């Protein structure tokens, strides 16, 4: 058994502990200014500047939650505040974000207006020029103005930093693919695939693979197409991207349908439709139902085909009501 400490020794220990705490506080107070002096010296932003940035950040968060209206409101406020502060860069950022949200919402005209204003303001040597060019190209592609889309995609590719190069190259490849320039599209998609792997960007890697799948399918190389789509599907599943997963499944189904494997095609269209419907993309799901109906009719199952067409009508009606 150890001897119990006497009352005198216990009070000494307490006093020493108190002294340590006080000494630590004094040291902390003395070291704080030194520490702050050693830390980064960033330019201090004024409260209105911070507020404009905060509006932009809140807009990005709202868009991530799928609240387009609130996002547009926040970006609009950011644009207004940056305009009042004569902050051109902040205005361009807000305009690009407004364009992006409108484009995703299907309002191409509003997107065009915003991005055209951004294009007028941005200097070609600016760091944010590649993002403006990327958005301008995307909007032009959505408006089916492919020559303009290609022109701006080339600008985006030539000016983008490493982190965005794969996305810009993929965009260029998509435009070329839509222009039926299969060879050029394939070259660009392979370039994008290589860049995305180097920079460890699985999203863009999957996009490049999906595009290669389409290129191979249209060139009647079914095996290569299925391989590319399956790789893209694996990546998109690991990333949890619903729309992209549905697109991969649709690509596989299209490939099977193109080689006459109708039963396999039906199975994959069904999966694509289920993913789209559960992911909230009713229009894409309705498209899958249409393809399913066409396949069933081709296989002589007319009743099933009619049933699927009715299902599609209901879905489109729901999408319209929303």
């Amino acid at each position, binding site marked *: 058994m150890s001897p119990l400490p006497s009352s005198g020794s216990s009070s000494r220990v307490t006093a020493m502990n108190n002294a340590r705490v006080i000494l630590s506080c004094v040291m902390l107070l003395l070291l704080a200014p030194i520490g702050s002096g050693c830390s980064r010296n960033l330019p201090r932003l004024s409260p209105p500047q911070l507020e404009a*940035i905060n509006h932009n950040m809140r807009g990005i968060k709202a868009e991530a939650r799928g609240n387009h209206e609130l996002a547009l409101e926040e970006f609009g406020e950011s644009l207004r505040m940056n305009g009042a502060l004569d902050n051109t860069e902040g205005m361009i*950022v807000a305009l*690009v974000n407004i364009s992006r949200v409108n484009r995703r919402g299907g309002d191409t005209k509003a997107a065009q207006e915003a991005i055209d204003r951004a294009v007028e303001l941005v200097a070609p040597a600016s760091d944010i020029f590649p993002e403006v060019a*990327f958005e301008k190209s*995307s909007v032009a592609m959505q408006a089916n103005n492919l020559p303009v889309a290609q022109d701006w995609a080339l600008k985006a590719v030539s000016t983008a930093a490493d982190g965005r190069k794969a996305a810009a190259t993929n965009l260029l490849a998509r435009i070329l693919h839509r222009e039926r320039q299969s060879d050029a599209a394939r070259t660009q998609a392979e370039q994008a695939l290589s860049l995305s792997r180097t920079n460890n960007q699985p999203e863009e890697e999957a996009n490049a693979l999906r595009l290669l799948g389409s290129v191979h399918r249209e060139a009647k190389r079914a095996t290569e197409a299925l391989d590319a789509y399956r790789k893209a599907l694996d990546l998109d599943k690991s990333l949890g991207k619903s729309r992209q997963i549905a697109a991969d499944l649709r690509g596989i189904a299209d490939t099977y349908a193109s080689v006459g494997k109708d039963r396999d095609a039906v199975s994959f269209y069904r999966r694509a439709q289920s993913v789209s419907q559960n992911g909230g993309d009713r229009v894409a799901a309705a498209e899958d139902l249409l393809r399913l109906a066409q396949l069933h009719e081709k296989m002589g199952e007319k009743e099933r085909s009619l049933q699927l067409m009715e299902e599609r009508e209901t879905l489109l009606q729901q999408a319209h009501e929303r």
Partner: protein
Amino acid sequence: MIKEEDVRFKHLEKKIGLFAAVAILGALAVVLFIGADKDLLTPKYKLKFTTEKGTGFAKGMPVKLSGFRIGRVKSISLNEQAMVDIEMEIDKKYQKWIKSDSTARLVKEGLVGDSIVEISVGSAKARVLKNGDTINFEKSKGLEEVANDIAEKVKPVLMEVKEIISYVNDPNGDIKQSLGNIKVLTRQLQDTREKVDELLVSSRDNVGTVTKSSVDLLNNTNAKVSALGPTLEKVDRSMTNLEKSLPPLLQKVDASMDHLEKTTLQLQKTSEKAMPRVPKLMNKAEDVMEGADTVMNAVKDMWPFKNHVPPAEQRQFVPGDSHE
């Protein structure tokens, strides 16, 4: 020396001189007469215009004003712009009619007559054109162009007429088929009439049978109405019961409504008391939020937190994917 002289040669020089003078005067008179007749001696002035094509113009072509010949085309030449300059010579006495708003037109006298240049009379207030001035030229359509225009206009009409005729003549077309149908219908109408006649004859016999059936039906209906009596009595009893149980139920509802009214009144009073405090509370809450924000911002600027807080970045874009 004797100088023999013939009397006939006496004053010969004078006679020749007189004869020559008369001949010259006669020639002059003829020239003057022809000149006056051809307007060669009338004072003239020149007007010009330019046209794209010289087709239809000829040197010496008459120039007319209101149907009267007032001059002629003096010259036709090709200029540097590959256009045709036409110069007209017009009698001075008509100058007062040709103004700055007059126009020259190439027209035909009648359908197959000669081409002439027709000048329109200018307005009273316009300036009179002087020697060497340019007059406006108004291009008029030639016979061929007019015929082409008419042909172009008539062509669709003819096409439509052709289509209508072929439509009418088409044995499988609506009109031919309708006519066939009318023919069939007329034939069928005659059959129908015969059938109707037969029906009328047979219906006369059936009237008696129908009357008897109606009487039976009325007797049956009467029996059913008599059977409905007990059911109506039951309904009557149910209504009496309902009348008895309804007043207490209504009283209960009334009491509940009273309670609800009192509760609402209480709530209203409470709200009235609380409402004026709400804006103050909101202001206070806003102050507290702003204070917290200031403190947080200050803390973010302090070491060691400063190093762990990402700086406010204004170049933040909504993530953009190449697949969108």
